[in-house]
């Protein structure tokens, strides 16, 4: 599928606290902005993918959005989750285009987790995580699952609180250069360590945000992409890895199926970690980025903690990560989270990022994971075919 499909439109809505737009309005606003960016009308779309919304759930969600937009797609799917599933949907959308099921797919994802769902209700909704008989009775909030992962990684490899904090500091530094980001005031490692302990060893600033917002992309065949006004961003490689759902069933707490997802994406692209100019990595909690850096081959297993030190994942460093600010500082409306990583990769490869532009960025990697390091998707994009 290398070089067969391209992103020709990408856009985000305003993010953070957006009280004047409902979840459904955020989906269609993101869609409208992405279509405008692609320079096409809604009737040029023959495929639609959305994700489910916590704030306004519908069983036939994509059909609701199609109805709202008055479009009549021949390919219409609702993703039941976010994180890695967003990359899975992108992978499948690319397959649908490559096999001729449809020509032009709009992927729009949004939610209203602050304004459409009170903070307490959002947290309560997330307390439905875990197996209803064998995990939930023990009272694990979502951060506890990631804390179990972080503790195991610390125990196995000596990863420190300061190293995890460096991930939050890098994301915030990038967000400070992104006027769209929800949290823009720079922080230092000490700020992370001094923030309230949520679930040892994770402090408040090791945890991602709760947000409103939406993002959308338009994908079509690489051949048709040449006729669009923007520089196409080609899909060079995509891969998935799925290892478990419940954390207590995971074969490993410290090595994830990002390893398989990444290997499959690299193999398709014919590229390796050394070829990546910028990486947008799922950062619901800081330890996740450290494990992803290892499993995606940017450093050996166990050395992720040392890799993130000394600004190596900041702009100007060896591998700039989460140049928009990530889920930690840009926004995290839940299921749509990975979409903002994809739209940022598109902007980086078009050279539109102003002060936070990675100079001469040619190849970007986006990784998402969902569940509890359960379901992984990797995509590699380039502004030229390879």
């Amino acid at each position, binding site marked *: 599928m290398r070089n067969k499909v391209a992103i020709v439109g990408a856009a985000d809505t305003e993010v953070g606290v957006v009280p004047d737009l409902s979840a459904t309005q955020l989906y269609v606003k993101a869609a409208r902005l992405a279509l405008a960016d692609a320079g096409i009308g809604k009737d040029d779309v023959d495929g639609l993918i959305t994700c489910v919304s916590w704030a306004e759930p519908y069983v036939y969600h994509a059909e609701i959005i199609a109805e709202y937009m008055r479009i009549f797609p021949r390919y219409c799917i609702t993703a039941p989750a976010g994180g890695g599933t967003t990359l899975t949907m992108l992978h499948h959308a690319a397959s649908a285009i490559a096999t001729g099921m449809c020509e032009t797919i709009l992927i729009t994802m949004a939610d209203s987790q602050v304004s459409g769902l009170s903070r307490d209700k959002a947290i309560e909704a997330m307390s439905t995580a875990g197996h209803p008989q064998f995990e939930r009775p023990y009272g694990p909030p979502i951060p506890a699952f990631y804390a179990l992962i972080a503790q195991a990684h610390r125990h196995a490899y000596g990863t420190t609180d300061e190293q995890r904090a460096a991930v939050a500091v890098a994301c915030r530094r990038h967000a400070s250069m992104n006027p769209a980001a929800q949290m823009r005031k720079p922080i230092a490692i000490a700020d992370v360590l001094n923030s309230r302990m949520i*679930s040892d060893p994770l402090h408040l600033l090791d945890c991602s945000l709760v947000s409103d917002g939406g993002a959308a992309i338009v994908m079509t065949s690489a051949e048709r992409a040449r006729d669009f006004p923007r520089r196409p961003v080609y899909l060079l490689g995509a891969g998935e890895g799925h290892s478990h759902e419940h954390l207590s*069933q995971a074969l490993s*707490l410290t090595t994830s199926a990002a390893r398989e997802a990444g290997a499959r994406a690299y193999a398709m692209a014919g590229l390796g970690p050394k070829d990546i100019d910028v990486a947008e990595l799922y950062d619901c909690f800081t330890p996740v980025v450290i494990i992803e850096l290892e499993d995606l081959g940017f450093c050996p297993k166990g050395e992720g903690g040392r890799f993130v030190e000394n600004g190596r994942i900041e702009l100007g460093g060896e591998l700039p990560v989460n140049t928009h600010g990530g889920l930690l500082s840009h926004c995290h409306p839940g299921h749509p989270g990975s979409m903002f990583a994809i739209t940022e990769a598109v902007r980086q490869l078009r050279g539109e990022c102003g002060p936070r532009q990675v100079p001469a960025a040619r190849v970007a990697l986006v990784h998402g994971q969902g569940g509890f390091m359960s379901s992984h998707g990797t995509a590699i994009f380039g502004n030229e075919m390879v």
Partner: protein
Amino acid sequence: MADTHGKPVPMPTRETLPFWEGCGRGELMIQRCGECGQFQFFPRLYCSRCMSERVAWVKASGGAEVTSFTIVRRPVSSAFAADAPYVVALVRLEEGPTMMTNIVGCPPERVAIGMAVEAVFERLTDEITLPKFRPRNG
């Protein structure tokens, strides 16, 4: 019925009932494959290694080792507020399978990865008793 203060109460299914009946007797029940000998938890219709249907319930020793843990400072819901800070852990049973649990019977700060623990049974309702774990040597 015991007051669960709104904590989630497991609803046994046909597949999991022998586990919960075991907990009621103070026995930790897991499955063992009659073909390949694998022990497994969660319970399944088939052996997850060799797909044999010959899975049987057996009593586990109750001994385990902490493979990871966290001290929850911000509880998952108000139902757990009185318990905070509490320890959520993953423990590997002597037979092999891993379980999520709470570590009880010692201050949270004493819990460590590698700690030897043993099952204890806490009654949640008239029908449900939860297996938890405590340090093996007091």
